[in-house]
């Protein structure tokens, strides 16, 4: 399956799927752009202390609610804190929310899906029914339910998103494991000549992991969105921690009067979302065997 449907040339045997994928990814301009933005955000998050003009808790009460000006390029918030600084520090929290939540999703979803796929039978049946139950819960509602139980806070957001997001990954993992199992018995041993782990790692696994990687990539901005939604409802991160989602949720009420309070964090989230989407698309195209050249 992985090696069918080529158009034209034969794959050069020295180039593994990974290397080929990387090459293709590099050529995808949008994906590269997205990747650069994400790296920039990551750096901003890591070196926030050095980059940000002010500390994110530094309150300048006499300059509260100021529109963007020379001292405060992106304006100030209700306590006179610099929006630019808060956005930079917010990158840290938002990146954390995105990555750690997805980490939890993967660490729960992949093992469960793998178990279901590998053992099959009753185990599979039980697990898939559990997945059905989780699927029937509208995700945001369940997140709110869990947040109510645990209370507000960053760690609780990770847990809530992790506990509700593993379903998709589990399903994907299971599907991939099932496909792998089928291949093992049918063509893997004979078709290529080399068999066993080598085939798996160099040719089959990249394809297997592809949908999972893509799902994780799309899940990151989704987690950031969920955090914004929670803050809008009022069960988000506690102040004074700055996070983009928290800013969007809390400052939505000021859109008409102090638009910059809500628009800049929204823009930050939007840019991040787009970057991850481009990268995700790029990764999927890069790992898609049908597009190999």
């Amino acid at each position, binding site marked *: 399956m992985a090696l069918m*449907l080529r158009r034209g040339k034969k794959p050069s045997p020295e180039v593994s799927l990974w290397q080929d994928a990387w090459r293709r990814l590099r050529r995808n301009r949008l994906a590269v752009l997205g990747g650069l933005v994400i790296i920039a955000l990551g750096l901003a998050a890591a070196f926030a202390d050095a980059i940000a003009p002010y500390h994110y808790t530094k309150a300048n009460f006499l300059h509260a609610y100021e529109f963007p000006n020379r001292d405060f390029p992106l304006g100030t918030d209700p306590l006179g804190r610099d929006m630019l600084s808060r956005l930079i520090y917010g990158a840290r929290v938002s990146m954390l929310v995105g990555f750690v939540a997805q980490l939890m999703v993967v660490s729960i979803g992949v093992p469960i899906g793998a178990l279901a796929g590998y053992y099959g039978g009753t185990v599979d049946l039980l697990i898939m*029914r*559990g997945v*059905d*139950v989780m*699927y*029937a*819960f*509208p*995700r*945001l*509602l369940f997140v*709110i*339910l*869990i947040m*109510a*139980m645990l*209370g507000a806070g960053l760690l609780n957001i990770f847990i809530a998103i992790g506990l509700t997001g593993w379903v998709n990954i589990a399903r994907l993992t299971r599907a991939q494991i*099932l496909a792998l199992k089928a291949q093992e018995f049918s063509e893997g041993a004979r078709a290529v000549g080399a068999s066993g782990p080598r085939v798996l790692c160099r040719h089959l696994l990249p394809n297997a992991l592809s949908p999972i990687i893509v799902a994780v990539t799309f899940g990151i*901005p989704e987690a950031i*969105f969920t955090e*914004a*939604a929670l803050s*809008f*409802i009022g069960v988000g991160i506690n102040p004074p921690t700055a996070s983009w989602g928290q800013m*969007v*949720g809390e400052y*939505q009420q000021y*859109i*008409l009067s102090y638009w910059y309070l*809500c628009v800049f964090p*929204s823009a930050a*989230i*939007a*840019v991040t*979302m*787009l970057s991850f*989407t481009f990268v995700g698309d790029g990764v999927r195209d890069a790992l898609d065997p*049908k597009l190999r050249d």
Partner: protein
Amino acid sequence: MMFYLIRRILWLIPTLLAMALVTFLVMHATPGSPLEPEGGNNPLSPAEQNNLAAKYGLDRPLWAQFGVFLVNAMQGDFGHSYVYKTRTVAEILGDAFPVSLRLGAMALVIATCLGVGLGVLAAVHQNSFWDYLSVTTAMVAVSIPNFVMAVFLILLFSFLIPVLPTGGWGGPRDWVLPTVTLALAPMAIIARYTRASMLEVIHADYIRTARAKGLTDTAVISKHVLKNAFIPVLTLLGPLFAAVGTGSFFVESIFRVPGMGRFFVISMTGRDYPMIMAVVLCYGVFLAVMNLLVDLLYGVLDPRIRVGAKG
């Protein structure tokens, strides 16, 4: 096929049961008791709390409470709301659910039509101006949270171009803004996937065969491409139902639509146990039914995917 249908419907029952159980447990594990009054300067006296607990049935052990709930629910009695004293939960949701259903349905119809249309346009005119325009629109629509988008739309269509009211649910004019706000993100996602899958199909071998056979472009597109391209879109519809269902909370609040979405948060903060259970089950049934419909549609659209043969 019939067999499959029956099997799926039967599986609904343990699924809903499990959902109810999970919700019940999480609900009772949440700090903050419904016996604590909504506001005020004192907690209720112990005598009052006992009376209230008896009235709500909270003085029984947990397993008994769950049992009572199930027995009543099967008869359609979801109890009285702890928050809204004059109505039963069934009455409240009976009013609210159809509203959310209509809002969600309208939003999805618009999202699908516009999304597929945009996607087809973009795919057929790949790399042209239309392609970039639709892709950009889609990107923008999906990267702004809908509670932010809502305000922009109100500003645009209620104030700048005063044609629409800022909310309510009286007549068709009131439906426009909430529906559009809710439809934007799904529309964008559908457009993207439609475009991608159409491109895949367009370049696929069997389309080349059709072209070689001499079919015109339009015939090719309408006969083969669309039908097969729609299948991945169909995959999306299931999760999109869910997304629209939950996203409706913000839209319903901002546009004051008297739907079910609002109740979820209100019932959570109000520790309105009967309402929480009913809302969750409502969503559960709805999503399960929608997923089933989607799976059936699969079979209709693609003979290769015959339902019942799945592992």
